[in-house]
């Protein structure tokens, strides 16, 4: 608990400190390439024949996903706290790459924990992290995915807390992480709100984002939550079936539980043992969800839906072919939902999608799934 108290205090100080905010904003602009644009997806819109689709282009951030927003913020915080070492968990590898990048930029030592199943399907990102000077440690426990990497990161953190900051990658875990990560990611929504008003001349009818832990979704939703007329939809991984163990749809099959220091919806059996999950996308393959999403779900501010593996892979192709943007498989879940609902909406309406990351990392895995030898 002491590390969490120390972190909470340091974060509260930092966010009030103009110099800290200024430095982070400067790096987001000159290093990450923010603000990221929103693109009107003209051919996709025409193809779907309904609402206009706008893409918030987090894939254009340095390192190719929204994860860098949080990684830079927390690494700056680590340096401010006098911690010379950072650790991180990663599922798809995007958070790991982002932390390795930020650590290289700021001169911090970095170790990334990754389930060995994820190492296999995201081999490119494993090598990227090593190129960036990080040490990547494979985790053999459980389903060898994100949850197991978080377990190992927490163990490392409590053992080395004097020298180490744990850069948690999503709106998960104990306080202050869910609030802190959301705040670092809220730049997505604040930019998008201004941009969509300018480009579409009104608010969107619908905002869609994929939800693993839920950081890109929390990042884009936060700005829109006060606008009740904007529908918000989070898309979970439906995996390959509806039985426990075949998906990662916490709101469809989960019960309230406590995992990783947070009470939220958790996929578990009747004995309170945490279930294994499956998704084609490593970044959505997690049995719990950020606690604020649970709150938005229970208060009905955000609707949560599921998209299965094959729909997501179809959407991966669709966006690539129609817009020249290869999305991450995580993001492809959000696109698949858009493809489902856009045709039923009016052409004057707009859908804003968080295009949370690019899909270069998934090319080899999609090829493998489709039986293509590279």
């Amino acid at each position: 608990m002491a590390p969490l108290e120390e972190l909470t205090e340091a974060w509260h100080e930092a966010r009030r400190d103009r110099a800290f905010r200024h430095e982070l904003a400067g790096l987001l602009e000159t290093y990450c390439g923010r603000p990221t644009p929103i693109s009107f997806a003209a051919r996709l819109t025409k193809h779907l024949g309904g609402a206009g689709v706008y893409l918030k282009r987090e894939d254009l951030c340095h390192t190719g996903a929204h994860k860098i927003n949080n990684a830079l913020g927390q690494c700056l915080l680590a340096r401010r706290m006098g911690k010379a070492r950072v650790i991180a968990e990663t599922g798809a590898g995007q958070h790991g790459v982002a932390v390795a990048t930020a650590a290289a930029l700021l001169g911090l030592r970095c170790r990334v924990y990754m389930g060995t199943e994820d190492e296999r399907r995201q081999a490119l990102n494993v090598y990227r992290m090593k190129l960036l000077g990080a040490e990547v440690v494979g985790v053999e426990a459980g389903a060898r995915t994100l949850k197991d990497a978080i377990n190992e990161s927490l163990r490392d953190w409590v053992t080395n807390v004097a020298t180490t900051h744990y850069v948690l990658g999503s709106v998960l875990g104990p306080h202050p992480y869910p609030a802190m990560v959301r705040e670092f990611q809220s730049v997505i929504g604040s930019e998008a709100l201004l941009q969509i008003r300018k480009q579409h001349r009104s608010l969107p009818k619908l905002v869609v984002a994929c939800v693993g832990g839920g950081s890109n979704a929390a990042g884009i939703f936060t700005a829109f939550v006060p606008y009740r007329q904007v529908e918000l939809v989070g898309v979970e991984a439906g995996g390959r079936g509806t039985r426990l163990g075949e998906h990662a749809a916490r709101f469809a099959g989960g019960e309230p539980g406590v995992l990783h220091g947070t009470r939220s919806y958790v996929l578990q059996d009747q004995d309170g043992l945490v279930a294994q999950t499956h998704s084609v996308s490593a970044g959505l393959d997690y049995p719990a969800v950020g606690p604020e999403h649970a709150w938005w779900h229970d208060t009905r501010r955000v609707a949560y839906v599921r998209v299965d593996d094959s729909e997501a892979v179809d959407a991966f192709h669709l966006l690539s072919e129609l817009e020249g943007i290869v999305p991450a498989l995580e993001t492809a879940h959000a696109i698949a939902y858009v493809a489902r609902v856009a045709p039923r909406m009016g052409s004057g309406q707009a859908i804003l999608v968080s295009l949370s990351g690019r899909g270069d990392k998934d090319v080899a895995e999609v090829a493998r799934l489709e039986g293509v030898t590279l």
Partner: protein
Amino acid sequence: MSGRIERAFARARKARRAAFIPYITAGDPDPGRTVALARALERGGADILELGVPFTDPIADGATNQRAAERALAAGTTLTTVLETVRSFRLTSDLPLVLFTYFNPVHAYGLARFSVDAASAGVDGVLFTDVPVDEAGPAHEALRRVGIELVLLVAPTSTRARVKAVRRLAGSFVYFVARSGVTGARTTLEEGLEEQVRLVRKLTKTRVAVGFGVSTPDQVTRIAQFADGVVVGSVLVERIAELGDAPELPGAIEALARSFALATRRK
């Protein structure tokens, strides 16, 4: 307060030694053997038994206990079967028993129902590895009603304010984590352990048992000079892992337990 835990500490103190508190994971190697292992530990000189409830995500445990939990879960252990084990152990033994568990299995079971069932099975104390003292109020209340005490963890990094908060909820002892980090055998002990234990005893006004990383009789002897109890876990769990379902397992565990129990004497 639980009579059995209280009496065990008093008895040990009278015999001029620290209480010996062995830990094993319930259901490892399989639920059927846990009672026999518990009896072996009692014969080997245990004053209090700490029984781990296996969980899928044991974030406070090192590799040894993680693997024990995996074996126990693979053998079909659940919180329900652990309570059955406790019940059948209680038929023949008065050894005080503390469950060492993560919160989620209890949450799924239902805190109130768990408290009642644990008390009727014969549990004396419950330690939640992942419930900090600020969140422990409801659990403390539910357990207090049925006469079970809540055992709280204190870490070397715990602030003074936090240790004082522990005082309000603590029962006959608190569990002091000998070293920052997770469970598991270590060869060295943290500097300044004695001063820390004395401080925790002063601030919590209760007994202090020391655990996490205690793995040799020498370490036990050193800690026994200033602590009220010593918890030994991973070494026993490792031995269980090595022997698996071999028939000599209970005998080997008894002998190992005895070597630690004898080391608890105060000089």
